[in-house]
């Protein structure tokens, strides 16, 4: 699927793993949260970078102590109406100091890109049928921010 990283089209170097079979592959693995819980030690011992896919139902506590081992956290947006991922991304940055890539996966389309960016998501896995180069303009549709967020923590009253 088309990928945008830091507002640019990008190639996806990650292998998405959703079954135990897949864990044996080499390279950068992006594994589902349940698989991570079960195989964390084995995964941490292997070569190659690691990423985990979380969603609004994931109980994140077991993951937090290993955040510095992760190069990527993918936040799933199961539908465009499910906004939990915005808070999850912000908390990863704001509370847990995660500095790696946060990638939106699932229902990721034009009209949520800017909000996602503001919440600390810097990569976007866009369904092929919804991708167009034009959508990169989404980030700059609105340039005024009343709130502080992860792109700029200063609310409007601290910006000058």
């Amino acid at each position, binding site marked *: 699927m088309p990928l945008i990283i830091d507002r640019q089209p990008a190639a996806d170097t990650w292998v998405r793993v959703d079954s135990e079979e897949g864990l044996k592959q080499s390279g950068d693995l992006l594994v589902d949260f349940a698989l991570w819980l079960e195989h964390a030690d084995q995964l941490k011992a292997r070569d190659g970078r690691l990423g985990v896919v979380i969603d609004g139902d994931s109980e994140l506590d077991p993951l937090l102590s290993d955040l510095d081992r992760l190069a990527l956290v993918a936040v799933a947006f199961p539908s465009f109406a499910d*906004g*939990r991922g*915005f808070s999850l991304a912000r908390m990863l940055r704001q509370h847990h100091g995660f500095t790696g890539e946060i990638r939106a996966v699932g229902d990721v389309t034009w009209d949520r890109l800017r909000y996602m960016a503001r919440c600390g998501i810097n990569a976007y896995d866009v369904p092929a049928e919804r991708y167009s180069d034009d959508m990169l303009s989404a980030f700059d549709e*609105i340039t*005024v921010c009343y709130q502080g967020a992860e792109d700029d923590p*200063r609310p409007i009253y601290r910006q000058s």
Partner: protein
Amino acid sequence: MYIYNELDQQLIEQRAEQFRDQVRRYLAGQIAEDEFRVLRLQNGLYIQRHAPMLRVAINYGLLSSQQLRALAEVSRKYDKSYAHFTTRQNVQFNWPALEQVPDILADLAKVQMHAIQTSGSCIRSVGSDHFAGVFADEIEDPRPWSEIIRQWAALHPEFAYLPRKFKIACTGSRSDRAATQVHDIGVHVVNNDAGEQGFEILVGGGLGRTPMIGKVIRDFLPRQELLAYLEAILRVYNLWGRRDNKYKARIKILVQSLGVEDFRNRVEAEWERIKGGELTLTDAYVDRIKADFQPPAYDANAAADTSYAEKLASERDFAVWIERNTVPHKVAGYRAVTLTLKDYLKAPGDLSDVQMDEVADLADRYNFGEVRTTHEQNMVFAHIKQADLYPLWQALGELGLARPVVGTINDMICCPGLDFCSLANAETLSVARQVQERFDDMDYLYDLGDLSLKMSGCINACAHHHVGHIGILGVDKNGESYYQFTLGGSAAEDASIGKVLGKSIPLAEVGDTLQKILDTYVEIRDEGERFLDTVRRVGNQPFKERVYAANH
């Protein structure tokens, strides 16, 4: 009122253009119907029974005369020359074409108006007290705080896709004229024992299918922490509010299922992590906002006028209007006036373009160019010099906005119902006419005293029927409109949810039923006892016996 700076203006202009592009992509087939629905709702655009309906924000109910004229112009240019003022102090246009909505938004942006978050599962426009700045017992004018909340909520990146809609109201007085206890969050300006000013925070009020009164989750919040605390509440709600069932998705259900203690603990834990940070309000910012809400330049000699007393003594109708539709102002020689948008046999809350223009002119002439909308679907001129009351009364009378019915059942709050709304199950406007026709004897209405009648055409409760002293809910029975009565609700500081009287009754019997309820009240009330207090004293039983007596 709040004066937009360059950035405020830029934001609403960019938002209008963003929506123009969303409409373009939708019409080009690039956005699916269900996704566009979410996008258009975040801009106040519904698809209704006959046409789209556009809801425009009137933040905390405050309008300039220039803005009201712009609304009149929009109604002429894009609609059927009228607008409907709502129970959340906003305004609705019932007949715009989808393709023209971006132009409407661009026109409105020229007068600092917008439709941002007037619908959808996001933080809605902030409600406030329509008598802000009028009464001496006010702790502080709540509107600067409402504006601060508005700015924080506008296009908040984290909270645009909440489980459900989210409504905040803010008051600065012990008297609650903004129905704060039936909002998702109620913000009350309070003083603590040390004499410091801050906020009491209520969470989890709301109407709809499961009406609830909000619970206090913090007695005292330091003022500079307001936004950090709101952010903590919204984050807890966004993460844990139910998303599997829209009837259980409001924050009131989360508060109920976790219990107030657990909910509070989660909010406080989140707040601990962010408090004292960037969200902390700065004095410079608060002062800048407050500077825009300074009292107008009152005439120090207003009370010296003698014409007012003369007119009061000589013109009974004028005196009655003063008694019903105006209240004393803290500034000597001034009163605050309610314009009743309840003209005889007209849809409650509707104004024509001509009326809007005329009201704007009157606001310029008599009220420092300011107009307020109320959650009772009326308007308020908050600063009228006593010498101006008589000519204002005459002018309002010609416009049909001076019916002396404030606080009576003729001041009925009513949603548009089946005639316009695609959610409605039953007619409301014909019932409102039925009530007005039947109860048109003013002396009788005054004898009944304060009595709020609120009627919604469906369980979504736009007219807040649960908190009417008498509430009427329209329901559908095999394609016929029926009406269920509730008694004993209140939206004020003594907030309560009304109790259902009994089985619903058909359209033709609404007037009779109301008559029986009122007759019962008149018979059993104590001297000077309000209807609400009688119901609270005796319960529904005596009313129920009368309404459902055997001859039915």
